[in-house]
């Protein structure tokens, strides 16, 4: 039999055949070619004192191993309101996971572990969420109905998330287009995962129950960068209320991506907006590759319904395996199975994502659905060799029936093997039919891995423990009166002030327009100075120093007011801010001492120029003209800072140099 198949070559060949281009080389035409389409689900934690449905404090995080008790639960699918079992629900049930919740008494109560029904919905959270819903131009519902959204992965101990729609059909205005919004909901945040190994998944319950909103857009984005712009916009809009949480994990995005002929795939847990372009780019090409795989298979397999895998249990004694996982399997009485996939030659090593092949799709599902830890497969198109060639082929040949087939070896506890076989057959058959509907987890390298089958509307169920909440016109009108300015108007404002564009992201991300506006309007400070003070200087300082928990941007307003009263030039802010940043409670007079500020009359400083000129000329006569000014400025800068405008000083020095 010929052994000349080159998996690595096949990977490259198929990557080209798909027409994959790296993100930085891709043009709008590339995205049009594959029919790129994306939408966003932006999650944002709200800044409330308490959780959404109980009186636990919101947002105290514990270390993963700091807990008072553990509780075990299993999740079982139940019928939705319309009488359907959800697809995800059934898959999760198949995985038979034992879920362990770690509880710290300070952050979780009996509600969190579903031993107490919910308390009334947090009104503070509702108000913040409604404010944001109004900013998104959504149609606000007349009555809030709390709904249970099933999650059988265990991320919520009840097995469902309490969530409610506040508004539908809104829109946001990006630079070049309007993006439509499907809805905005308020919901409780889920647990943080500690580990997921084999049949045991462990969560901690500190984040559970924190009020969260989810803003969902239509799939209106046509380019990966546009998705990122939309995510930024929604993040800025949320932050413009000043009433949402910031920090790691406080804002998270799920991105829905499809290609032409593909399907909606949800990529979960993108915690940095800068990852969005690469992730969406890779996903659209993954789907495009899966469609090409379908095309190849459809030519070879005439009747997809008749397509079957064949498998054989291996007698481990016959083979002298030295590969560690197989040795482990053998020592622990696990089963080793070899499978034949008819007509799959060339498919297993087919490109799907950069550095990934179709076989990875099988491996990912085995981990999630059959609880087989990775590495969990060896196959006939392995790019990196695992078993010696001769041994591998001897094993694979025990099931091989045709030269166009591919083979897999899997291993694991006997109880998990039936699910594993089912999972492989199911995924392979899907390859003949469609791009599977799934939710995927984003990885730092911009690729994604399978997380679960994408749930549908069938997992929704009214919460019989909570009463509906009426939102009367008076209440909504009152909220409308106190709304912050919309983000697109904030962009206009910054442009009109002629503040450099590279500051916008920092300013909007930290919701600084209101404080900058007050500095400009109340203190009469030059807008460009105010804008760059935040967007350049402060950003730079923040990047270098850790700030104290007392820190607030409001201190900058107070500082400028203080300097104006003392008639000190505002340039001194640049040396004072790093100190304030680290010691916000320190009074400004002490900071003046701390930075060694000495009040010196302007004339006295200017008087030093001729002396310095002389000194410069004595030491160095060879340099260019600007050198003198630079040197003198350097000598005088420190004493001048705060006492006079540096621009004015520079003018005087230059003037002196010329004369």
């Amino acid at each position, binding site marked *: 039999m010929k052994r000349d198949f080159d998996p690595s070559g096949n990977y490259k060949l198929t990557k080209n055949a798909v027409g994959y281009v790296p993100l930085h080389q891709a043009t709008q035409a590339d995205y049009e070619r594959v029919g790129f389409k994306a939408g966003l689900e932006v999650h944002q934690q709200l800044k409330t004192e308490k959780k959404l449905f109980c009186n636990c404090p919101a947002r105290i995080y514990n270390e993963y191993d700091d807990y008072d008790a553990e509780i075990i639960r299993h999740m079982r699918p139940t*019928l939705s309101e319309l*009488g359907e079992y959800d697809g995800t629900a059934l898959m999760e049930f198949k995985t038979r996971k034992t879920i362990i919740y770690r509880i710290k008494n300070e952050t979780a109560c009996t509600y969190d572990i579903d031993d107490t029904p919910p308390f009334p919905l947090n009104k503070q959270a509702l108000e913040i969420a409604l404010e944001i819903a109004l900013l998104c131009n959504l149609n606000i*519902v007349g009555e809030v109905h709390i709904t249970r959204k099933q999650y059988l992965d265990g991320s919520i101990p009840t097995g469902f998330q309490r969530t409610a729609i506040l508004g539908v*059909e809104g829109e946001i205005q990006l630079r070049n287009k309007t993006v439509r919004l499907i809805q905005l909901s308020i919901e409780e945040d889920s647990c943080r995962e500690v580990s997921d190994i084999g049949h045991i998944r462990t969560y901690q319950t500190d984040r559970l129950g924190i009020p969260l909103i989810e803003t*969902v857009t239509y799939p209106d984005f046509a380019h990966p960068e546009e998705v990122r712009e939309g995510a930024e916009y929604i993040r800025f809009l949320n932050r413009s209320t000043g009433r949402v949480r910031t920090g790691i994990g406080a804002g998270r995005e799920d991105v829905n991506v499809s290609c032409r002929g593909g399907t909606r795939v949800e990529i979960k847990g993108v915690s940095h907006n800068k990852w969005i372009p690469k992730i969406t780019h890779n996903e659209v090409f993954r789907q495009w590759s899966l469609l090409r795989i379908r095309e190849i298979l459809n030519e070879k397999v005439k009747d997809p319904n008749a397509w079957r895998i064949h498998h054989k249990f291996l007698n481990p004694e016959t083979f002298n395996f030295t590969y560690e996982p197989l040795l482990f399997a053998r020592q622990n009485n696990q089963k080793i199975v070899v499978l034949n996939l008819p007509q799959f030659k060339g498919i297993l090593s087919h490109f799907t994502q950069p550095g990934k092949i179709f076989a990875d799709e099988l491996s990912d599902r085995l981990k999630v659905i059959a609880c087989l830890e990775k590495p969990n497969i060896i196959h006939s198109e392995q790019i990196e060799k695992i078993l010696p060639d001769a041994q591998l082929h001897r094993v694979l040949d025990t099931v091989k029936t045709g030269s166009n087939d591919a083979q897999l070896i899997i291993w694991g506890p006997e109880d998990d093997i039936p699910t594993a076989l089912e999972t492989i057959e199911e995924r392979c058959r899907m390859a003949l039919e469609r791009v599977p509907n799934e939710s995927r987890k984003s990885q730092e390298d911009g690729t994604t891995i399978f997380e679960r089958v994408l749930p549908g*509307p069938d997992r*929704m169920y009214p919460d*019989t423990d909570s009463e*509906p909440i009426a939102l009367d016109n008076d209440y*909504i009108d009152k909220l409308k009166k106190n709304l912050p300015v919309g983000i697109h108007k904030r962009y206009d404002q910054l442009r009109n002030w002629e503040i450099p564009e590279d500051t916008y992201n920092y300013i909007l991300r930290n919701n600084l327009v209101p404080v900058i506006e007050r500095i400009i309007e109340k203190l009469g400070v030059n807008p460009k100075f105010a804008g760059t003070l935040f967007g350049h200087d402060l950003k730079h300082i923040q990047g270098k120093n850790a700030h104290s928990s007392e820190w607030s941007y409001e201190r900058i307003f107070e500082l400028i007011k203080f300097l104006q009263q003392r008639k000190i030039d505002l340039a001194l802010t640049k040396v004072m801010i790093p100190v304030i940043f680290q010691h916000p409670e320190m009074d400004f007079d002490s900071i003046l001492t701390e930075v060694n500020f000495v009040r010196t009359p302007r004339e006295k400083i200017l008087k030093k120029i001729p002396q310095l000129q002389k000194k410069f000329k004595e030491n160095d006569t060879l340099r260019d003209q600007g050198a003198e000014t630079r040197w003198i400025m350097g000598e005088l800068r420190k004493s001048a800072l705060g006492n006079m405008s540096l621009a004015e000083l520079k003018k005087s020095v230059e003037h002196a140099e010329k004369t």
Partner: protein
Amino acid sequence: MNEDIFQGYKGQALTVLKKFKIKVWSQVEIDTTRGLFKGTILPRSENDDDRHIVLKISTGYNIGINVETIQSIKEFGYKKAKYQIKEREFPYSDEKPNVKLLGTGGTIASRLDYRTGAVIPAFSPGELYGAVPELADICNIKTEKLFAVFSENMGPEEYKALAVAIEKEIEKGIDGIIIGHGTDTLHHTAAALTYMIQNPPIPIILVGSQRSSDRPSSDAALNLMHAAYAAGHSDIAEVLVCMFGPTSDEYGFLHRGTRVRKMHSSYRSTFRTIGDIPLAKVTKSSVEHLKDSYNPRRKDRKVKILPYFNEKVSIVFYYPNMKPDIIDSLVENGYKGIVIAGTGLGHVNKPLYPAIERAVARNVAIYMTVQTLWGYVHMHVYETGRDLLTKGIIPAGNMLPEVAYIKLGWVLGQTDDLEEVKKIMLTPIQDDITLREPYNGYLIYQGGVPEVEEFIRKFRK
């Protein structure tokens, strides 16, 4: 068929639906002053207000629309939900014990009732098997729905009907009985059945669920599996309550029907044996005995049913400053038996004395229990107690107040002879009064204590 096409709607909301000729399950576009909403009209819970219409939107969520904001409604379709629990034929096998599940209204698997927002139980063996397929590995189950009432509506008539139904099943040769029951008064029913079904040859297991079975983390399925195992396989032929041991999905307890009490309004591990330890731990495939003395399973079919109950019995939870008219009014209304849950060792205040005398003079049986739940009535320790004894109040040992209430009703249902009543009341039945209280019969540890915290952290709750 006379179908209600406006399920649950009333008042203003009903008027608006009629005005636009829209019915429940219509797919509509509603134009309002707050914008356009699109979805399917859902029934409304009858207890909710008449100002809103409920809509299921395409993402599966429900929302309410204020009828005052509605400008027009356009119907574009009709989509009625067909709610059906997946039914699969229960695989019976000769090797497995036969168990009968008697339904009273508890939920195992369930569907939603739009009218009340409550859940309706799945019940047929096929439905149960569809929802909890593991049952088929444990036993053969047949079901019969005796009534469909909430736990709080269970009463003497239901106790009697249950006792009679169980007698029939025992005579027919069943290996075990499961009774599905709401949890609120599960322990009252358990006590009643203990008295009414004397010396049963098989296990009679009462089971419910604390967290409704419409949620994925419900305790219903596991409780049912535990109950099925206990009914089909355990050696304990008594009336038992089978509910979660810890709040975790780990194991259940089998509690004696006369010593068990619901101790938390919502916790899964709410049922506790009071003043003693549970009889056994139970899992999907084992029963581990914690106590050695119990009535073992027998092959014979002999069972004595005493389905009697006098409803003119009450329970009085004493509080400081209670006025004698409370007792007087019971007597005037013809009550024949009163159980007092007294303070401490079994006390009430002096102003009640004359009322007690009047009651005793009119042949009302008065029994004293303790509201501390744990411990015995000791009426000889203080003067108050001795006074009360003289007045004719009879101490009921460490019988739980609710159990004493059920027992007194049952005894008075059989005889008016107060001496006979006293004899039966004070003769222990299935440990309703225990002669000793073991040291570990009272364990309420307090959190915060380092060694308790260590215990909790190490051995899951």
